[in-house]
């Protein structure tokens, strides 16, 4: 009996092995098919070819290759779909644009230039840096001022081709055309600028005048709102506000000062509810927080959102009677967000065309009318809503500008700050 079994097995062995190999091959083929077709996002139309060749190119000599490609782009030229990496909800599109009744800028770009835009979100500069540094491919990213310095130093940005972006020289306000973080705007184009401050409910703080960082950092001043206070979850911002409260510069290179700030933040553990950079404005308006550190545009847009209008468009509930925004008396941060092209980009021409598109007067104004941040685009002022232009919370008066500091890159101290913040939270 056993002998017969063995010989039968010998005969069918070949057959079953072949069957199994085919099955496995089928599975692997399925896998490869999945990888192959899905490397290209399906929103693209006929760019399959460009995608695959670009992929092999970028492995060879990335920086030179992409730089040469960017330099060769003509104005308005495109070379494939645009992969945009931006802060969450920083650009109006889709239902959000409808809510705020502004143009859907991504759709507009698609209509005017024929390329679709794929939008991916990030919530902090460091998140974005980690992705780009790891090699993720995006065509346009939106780094903040100090991050631009880091990225330039690390050879992560492509130098902009002025010929392809004429609006860069034409439309930008003088204050932003030769900034400290990127002299001459060689690698970046200003996107929006704003301030950091304190958003609050009038139940917690009486008035927008004379607000101090102490409501966040001083035990006595924070006590009435304990458990309803939030800080930003951001190394530079949170440490910066602590430094300002202590009377130091938020770009200080003095380790003692940074340590002091870190200890101060650590001491707030008693009364703060959360560290939050991504939903603090909704938590403020819903009552979970009474006092929040945050960015002016986020607060203002939220207050506008929760205000109610009747069918004729008249104001029935004005959120500004319940909520406010203030820049503390000790001073605070002003920052500029920019558009830049990372060296991992695959469509530099489309990228530059997009940047030029965003720098148009109308589109710059749409941005401000949407996210309530100030525009560095002088030509855009013609199209920005009157009340926003006159709004001190968006366009601060000179005496406020005097106490605002722009972030600078810290060079080697970057890591020290990062570690200090980890200590402060932990």
């Amino acid at each position, binding site marked *: 009996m056993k002998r017969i079994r063995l010989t039968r097995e010998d005969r069918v062995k070949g057959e079953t092995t072949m069957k199994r190999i085919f099955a496995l091959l089928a599975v692997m083929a399925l896998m490869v098919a999945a990888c192959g077709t899905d*490397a290209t996002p399906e929103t693209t139309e006929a760019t399959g070819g460009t995608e695959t060749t670009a992929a092999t190119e970028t492995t060879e000599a990335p920086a030179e290759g992409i730089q040469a490609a960017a330099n060769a782009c003509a104005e308005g030229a495109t070379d494939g779909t645009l992969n945009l990496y931006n802060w969450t909800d920083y650009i109006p599109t889709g239902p959000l644009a409808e809510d705020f009744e502004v143009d859907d800028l991504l759709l507009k770009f698609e209509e005017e230039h024929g390329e679709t835009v794929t939008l991916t979100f990030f919530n902090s500069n460091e998140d974005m840096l980690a992705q780009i540094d*790891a090699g993720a491919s995006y065509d346009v990213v939106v780094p903040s001022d100090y991050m631009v310095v880091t990225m330039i130093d690390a050879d992560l940005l492509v130098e902009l081709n002025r010929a392809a972006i004429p609006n860069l020289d034409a439309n930008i306000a003088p204050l932003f055309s030769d900034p400290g973080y990127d002299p001459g705007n060689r690698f970046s184009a200003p996107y929006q600028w704003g301030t950091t401050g304190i958003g609050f409910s009038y139940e917690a703080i009486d008035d927008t005048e004379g607000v101090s960082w102490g409501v966040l950092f001083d035990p006595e001043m924070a006590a009435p709102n304990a458990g309803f206070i939030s800080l930003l979850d951001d190394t530079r911002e949170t440490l910066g506000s602590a430094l300002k409260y202590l009377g130091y510069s938020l770009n200080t290179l003095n380790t003692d000062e940074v340590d002091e700030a870190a200890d101060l933040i650590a001491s707030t553990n008693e009364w703060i509810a959360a560290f939050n950079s991504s939903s603090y404005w909704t938590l403020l308006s819903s009552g979970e927080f009474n006092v929040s550190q945050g960015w002016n545009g986020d607060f203002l847009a939220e207050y506008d959102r929760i205000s109610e209008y009747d069918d004729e468009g008249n104001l029935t509930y004005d959120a500004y009677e319940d909520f406010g925004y203030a820049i503390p008396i000790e001073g605070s941060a002003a920052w500029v967000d920019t558009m830049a092209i990372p060296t991992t980009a695959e469509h530099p021409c489309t990228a530059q065309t997009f940047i030029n598109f965003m720098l148009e007067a109308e589109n710059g104004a749409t941005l401000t009318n949407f996210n309530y941040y100030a525009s560095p685009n002088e030509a855009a002022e013609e199209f920005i809503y009157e009340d926003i232009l006159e709004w001190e919370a968006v366009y601060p008066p000179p005496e406020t500008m005097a106490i605002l500091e722009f972030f600078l890159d810290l060079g080697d101290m970057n890591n020290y700050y990062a570690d200090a913040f980890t200590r402060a939270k932990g």
Partner: protein
Amino acid sequence: MTTLHQGAATRPRLDRSLTIWGWLVFAFLYLPILIVVVFSFSGSESVGRWGGFSLRWYEQMFANEQLMNALENSIVVALISTAVATVLGTAAALSLDRYRRWIGRGAFDGLLYLPVIIPDVTMAVMLLLWFTSTDVVELGRGSITLAHIAFNISFVAIVVRARLAHMDPLMEDAAADLYANRWQAFRRVTLPLIMPGVLGGALLALTLSLDDVVITSFVQGPGSTTLPVYVFGLIRRTVTPVINAVSTLMIAVSMVLVLASLTFQNRTGRRTESKERNQ
């Protein structure tokens, strides 16, 4: 398999307590789900206050292209990664359970456990580094699928192995005695018997894939955002009830899938059960 029959009859108080506890736990498990489902039909924007029955969130959901794109990505990735992981995992389980001596078996046994014990974050980071250093595949749906397969193989293998341990290997012998070749024996005897385990493993893999946030957010690329990651970004601004609509839909679809697999299993299960009993 006897159940506690006589004992149970004489302990009504314990019975009641256990039942109450059971219902409490179910209440706990379903409380957030109920909120999600109920408020997906609420007309008011603020979740927490009922605003009349309305389907507007479902309308908005289908109209939101980015959301639909993310949903599609999630489903495609989940289905493909589950299919592949189930095949590879089942084969792996068989290799360990049926064959006791082959080269590298010990190492393989250990290797299979690693994806289970490794922290999410570590796996996310190392896969990101791997994909970007080696250009095996562009960051996108492909990379997410590959990542999901990587951790799902182990889970499937564990579940199938548990089931295999219960299976009487003499069944395969019997089949062989009846002149079945190896493939036939596998298909007609082993597979139906371990099917509950395979399906269980597949179900687990599907769940893990659909639910994954950390690993996916690290290895995704432009346009390949999956639902959990998209929700992560979206849910932060307004707690928009559209997400509730999406979740409700996903639960409903999953329930249908499970019920389908159950009825399919029941039919084959009953046949094999009667076969077992007649042995």
